[in-house]
């Protein structure tokens, strides 16, 4: 792997194309869109993705700070997070591209790729389209350039430092602060726990209704931190339709299904060969090993607790083989 590129390119073409969209480059990668598709080019190939799917994936990659490990936009294009720099690749995790020698990968300093991705997301997202929303809750991504939706693509990222609702920490959600109950969760009880703190301990006796909090989430497939136990992070999220990326793990990740049902397609991280299908219903717990990639399907909006270990040394330990890709041997 060559040194990460840190030369800041011009952000996008000056003149829009005939559909009204600007083109973007990152190293030798090129990005263009028309009314239906995003077009990605690299020295040895080219690829096209439906632009709605591309924007949903791009939105997650940006919002998650390139997340843990690999964010496959689809079976060809994606990013690898090195926590300070990011690889942009085409065909790197596709067995056929690899065998044909058509894969390509380049490394960029995180602020650079973040800046270009943000500019592309802003330019290519039309008014009325919200990449974070479920398909039934947003307008179309297609067609010629039609305004923008900056408010939707620059939402605040929830990262509790101790726990939601703790003094000085991320607030609870309510109608008053702009989070109505989602249409699929109208039956979720909104009662708050009865908290009786003795004088002087008001800041330490803290409890909140996590399920009510999640019922008011206005985004899908967007894990956000609600409680922090050293490097153990609870990152629940609400899911509907299809996870817009295929997440390739660089560490073990755990899922606790809090409500309803999600089905997961699990593939080999390197080749994409199918390994298993995991069906999770309320109360089910499953690990996603460190050598897989996965994509979820949620027919109804559901609540999923994503549990992460944020210890920074983990990717190296798994990559070197010092740590088993499965969390428990029995």
């Amino acid at each position, binding site marked *: 792997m060559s040194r990460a590129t840190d030369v800041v390119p011009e952000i996008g073409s000056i003149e829009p194309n005939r559909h009204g969209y600007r083109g973007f480059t990152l190293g030798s990668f090129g990005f263009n869109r028309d009314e239906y598709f995003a077009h990605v080019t690299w020295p040895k190939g080219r690829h096209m993705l439906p632009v709605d799917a591309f924007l949903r994936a791009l939105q997650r990659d940006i919002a998650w700070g390139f997340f843990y490990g690999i964010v496959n936009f689809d079976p060809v294009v994606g990013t690898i997070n090195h926590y300070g720099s990011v690889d942009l690749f085409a065909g790197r995790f596709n067995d056929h591209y690899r065998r044909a020698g058509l894969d390509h990968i380049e490394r960029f300093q995180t602020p650079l790729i973040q800046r270009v991705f943000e500019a592309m997301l802003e330019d290519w997202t039309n008014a009325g389209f919200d990449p974070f929303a479920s398909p039934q809750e947003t307008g179309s991504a297609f067609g010629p350039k039609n305004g923008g939706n900056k408010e939707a693509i620059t939402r605040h990222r929830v990262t509790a430092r101790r726990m939601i609702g703790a003094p000085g920490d991320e607030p609870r959600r309510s109608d008053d602060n702009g989070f109505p109950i989602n249409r699929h*969760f109208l039956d979720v009880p909104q009662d708050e726990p009865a908290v009786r703190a003795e004088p002087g301990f008001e800041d330490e*006796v803290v*409890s909140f209704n996590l*399920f009510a909090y999640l019922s008011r989430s206005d985004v899908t497939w967007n894990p956000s931190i609600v409680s922090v*136990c050293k490097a153990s992070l609870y990152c629940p999220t609400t899911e509907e339709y299809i996870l817009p990326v295929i997440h390739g793990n660089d560490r073990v990740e755990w899922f606790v299904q809090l409500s309803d049902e999600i089905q997961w397609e699990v593939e080999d991280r390197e080749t994409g060969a199918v390994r*298993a299908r*995991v*069906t999770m219903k309320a*109360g*089910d717990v499953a690990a996603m090993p460190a050598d897989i990639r996965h994509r979820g399907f949620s027919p109804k909006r559901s609540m999923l607790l994503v549990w992460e270990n944020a210890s920074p040394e983990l990717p190296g330990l798994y990559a070197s083989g010092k740590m088993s890709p499965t969390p428990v041997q029995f």
Partner: protein
Amino acid sequence: MSQQTTRFGSLEHYAKGGVEVINDDARNYVFSNVFEVASRAKPFEKVAVGKNIEYVIEAIRADGTSGWRAPAQDEFALVMDGEVEIRLLKLAEPGVVPAGTKGSVALPGMPPGRKMGVVRARRGHMTLLPVGAAYQFHAAQPGVILLQTLAGADTVERWADICQTTPRPQA
């Protein structure tokens, strides 16, 4: 549009999914269900259902009154079923949790200290169990707590008993 019904689980009513293996070993997914685990556990037994190096998620059957425990770091109790009263007490002697402790320690009876307060938590409610405090659970009816913590001396690991080991879920 008809209103959607949100499905939560409980000790009395839960449905379980599972792993359908195509080219793998089901044990790699460490698949279990917190309600099934809690339904077969002793009261307040701390059964690990998730483990990530030193960290665990424990399924706890809340049934009656627990002993007092003190965490070595913040813990978080999420009630998955039932109603649980959580009693908190500021430790007069934080040294009852030895340096280097992971998770929490059981205390012999109610420790000396000031009462901090009480939380009555029901399904979906998450409560901070702060470091420097001791806590006790009480549930008049059986319930389930999911605890975010580190593996400690009292964490029970019986993966072969709770996890799917076959290529298809058992009917």
